């Protein structure tokens, strides 16, 4: 039965129209992804009404391909101009831009493209084969478990702020504070909104992110004398990587892809969270932690494999149970609904024709992404030949368009500039922005799920330890917290010394 459906889907996706839709969707995804300020979720939301003229499978396949394409596209801007094209590419900046500055932009983009491709393929395979089995994981995550996930995520701040723990924690706390702005969804009380209803829904994460990264970069570009600025236009290296470069990255690809798939499955977390988890794990697993943040290939491969793996992961509960795994898939589900397809467990049976076409479209979009990605990236590299003064203005214009287009609201353009100024001064004071971003992403989840859990337990904190999933996650969080303190370093040093003596 399932095999029949898989074959049915394959023949359906190979029809001319569907292939064209996937190719066009992926290309469009690459484009919006690469534009700072325009994100996949936004592109899907804007294009959704356009797809109503298509057949459901064609329209939905196209939207899903946009999602896939944008996940790679986001890294192009992150690597070349140090502004994340999509929120899911924020972690790519940390190592992508330094590598590009060394004159290895082509290599950085090649690593990103290969990682995106591998992440996408792995998650597509999960999606095609074991989606019904893994879909159930989504309902295993209620408020208690989500709280533990958020706590685990918070420990990333520790590893992002090595060197200056105080400044990192300061930025992280600032992020948490910003995340409390808006209507408290458990009590219905607006907090820190200054009576402005535009802040009732909280600070839109994408708006803050655009401001924090892109505006300081635009200013930075014009601050220095043109001739003094290190230009990244000397692309002498190839985008297609030789095998010897790829081989050492394979464990990172696989680990990050798995992180991406599982983060995708958990409702409420998507690429913007997965990229940090993967980056953190790559750093933890590495022997050479010092190279991270200075252009490490692992630091590019990890977030990029993870954010593309999220696409398949987020679709797993979406198609097997009708539970969206991320904000982009929530819009996709809405799209299905509007096409007259009831999202729910019947997607894989009653609407198998549409669903399996979509699954194959996701799989194929990886290949389109790779092929179109090479061409597109080559074109994008010319960005670095543009005069910095022009580029700077272009970035600001895109930021304004992007922050307006998210909710069609001018207030958010102002908010974006506010965060831009904050980002600029944080940069001057050498306070890392990344922990702020992590705090802002996870803060709301942390706050809401904690409150909900305590309501469920009638105020008992033991609920977090009685629940096996949350207990394990909290234990891992505690361990990684200890790992980033000096105590652990000393303990390891003494152990190494002992084993050295024994030898």
């Amino acid at each position: 039965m399932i095999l029949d459906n898989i074959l049915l889907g394959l023949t359906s996706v190979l029809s001319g129209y569907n292939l064209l839709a996937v190719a066009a969707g992926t290309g469009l995804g690459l484009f919006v992804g690469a534009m700072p300020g325009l994100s996949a979720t936004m592109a899907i939301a804007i294009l959704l009404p356009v797809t109503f003229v298509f057949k459901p499978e064609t329209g939905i396949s196209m939207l899903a391909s946009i999602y896939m394409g944008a996940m790679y596209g986001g890294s192009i801007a992150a690597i070349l101009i140090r502004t994340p094209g999509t929120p899911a590419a924020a972690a790519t900046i940390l190592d992508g831009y330094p590598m590009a500055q060394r004159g290895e932009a082509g290599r950085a983009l090649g690593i990103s493209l290969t990682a995106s491709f591998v992440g996408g393929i792995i998650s597509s395979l999960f999606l095609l084969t074991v989606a019904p089995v893994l879909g159930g994981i989504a309902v295993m995550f209620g408020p208690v478990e989500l709280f533990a996930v958020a706590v685990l995520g918070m420990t990333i701040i520790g590893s992002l702020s090595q060197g200056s723990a105080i400044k990192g924690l300061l930025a992280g706390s600032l992020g948490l504070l910003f995340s409390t702005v808006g209507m408290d969804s458990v009590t219905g009380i607006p907090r820190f909104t200054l009576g402005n209803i535009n802040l009732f829904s909280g600070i839109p994460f994408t708006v803050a992110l655009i401001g924090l990264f892109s505006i300081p970069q635009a200013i930075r570009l014009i601050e220095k004398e043109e001739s003094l600025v290190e230009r990244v236009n000397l692309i002498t290296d190839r985008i297609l990587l030789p095998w010897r470069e790829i081989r050492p990255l394979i464990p990172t690809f696989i680990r990050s892809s798995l992180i991406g798939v599982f983060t995708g499955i958990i409702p409420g977390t998507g690429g913007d969270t997965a990229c940090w988890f993967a980056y953190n794990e790559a750093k933890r697993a590495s022997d050479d932690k010092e190279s991270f943040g200075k252009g490490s290939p692992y630091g590019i491969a990890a977030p990029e494999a993870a954010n593309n793996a999220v696409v398949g992961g987020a679709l797993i509960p979406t198609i097997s149970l009708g539970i969206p795994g991320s904000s982009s898939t929530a819009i996709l589900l809405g799209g299905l609904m509007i096409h007259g397809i009831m999202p729910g467990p019947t997607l894989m049976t009653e609407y198998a024709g549409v669903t399996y076409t979509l699954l194959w479209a996701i799989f194929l979009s990886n290949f389109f992404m790779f092929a179109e990605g090479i061409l597109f990236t080559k074109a994008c590299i010319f960005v670095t030949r543009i005069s910095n003064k022009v580029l700077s203005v272009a970035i600001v214009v895109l930021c304004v368009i992007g922050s307006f287009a998210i909710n069609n609201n001018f207030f958010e353009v102002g908010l974006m500039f506010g965060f831009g100024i904050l980002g600029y001064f944080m940069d001057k004071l050498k306070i890392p922005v990344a922990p702020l971003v992590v705090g802002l992403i996870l803060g709301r989840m942390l706050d809401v799920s904690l409150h909900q859990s305590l309501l469920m337990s009638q105020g008992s904190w033991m609920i977090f330890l009685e629940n096996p999933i949350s207990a394990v996650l909290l234990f891992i969080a505690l361990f990684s917290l200890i790992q980033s303190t000096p105590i652990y370093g000393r303990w390891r040093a003494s152990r190494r010394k002992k084993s050295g003596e024994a030898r």
Partner: protein
Amino acid sequence: MRKSRWIVGILVLLVCVMAGQAAFAEYPTKQITVLQGFKAGGGSDTLAQLTQPFLEKAIGQSFINQYIPGATGAIAWTQLAKTAKKDGYTLSITNTPMLQTNYIMNPEITYNISELEPIANVVTDPGIIVVAKDSPYKTVEDFLKAAKENPGKLTVGNSGVGGDDFFTTLIFEKASGLKFQMIPFEGDGPSWQAAMGGKIDASFNNLGITYPQIKAGNLRALAVFTENRYELIPDVPTAKELGYNVVSGSSRGYSAPKGIPAETRDTLIAAFKKMAEMPEFVKACNDRASIIDMKFGDDYAKMLKEQEAAFKIIWDEVKEQYQGKK
């Protein structure tokens, strides 16, 4: 040759002017903008995409959706009430109870329904109580018995403070004298998903939203808050049958700003009446488990007004518990 071109040109011009004048006389002559207070792909958008193809046929003009999400719809509705032109070319999808509870609960939100001209309600998604398929509560009697024995201990989810499920729970508590531990979630989805995963004892939700899961057997419906049993789920008793006079749900329709010309209002209402009679529209609604509940003009306004009064009373009773003493 040249002469004949001139004649053709003049003729074309004449036709254009006449067409323009004819159009000037009758609303609508251009696209109608629909403000949406929620994201594309959400419940409001679903209604928009469901109704607009039929409305376009009925009114002879196309609709264009503008999405202004934020503050549970309040940003779009404030715009509709305060700044939209009162010419009938700007409408909004208005959903209850958010349309009223927004300003009842938050003094910062300044619009209210007296500034709107309700055109037509289209659908109402009735309230429902659902539990996981392996829940110990097989029937509504089991559930109510457990609630009676453990007052304030049974955890029931809702879609958020101020949402329809939140108010349904409060009204039901009042009618039954029972007390639940209410858990607000961020939307209907997380609420039923928590019930399905056994994280909470039950979810007060909506029929149309949970129907696919009920049909697939992942969720069990215990009771529905409608006047009569609903044909999709004939075995599920209504709260009324059980002796609790609670009928509740969330409704979606279209409203214009107050002060649009009377003829324009009539034209719009006529278009909705025409749409309601189209068999394709009825079929499209049934396919999506959307429950048609047409109410036009004054009837819709009356419904909104009555709800507003009811929500005010309930909110005043529980306000302190949620927002503290002021």
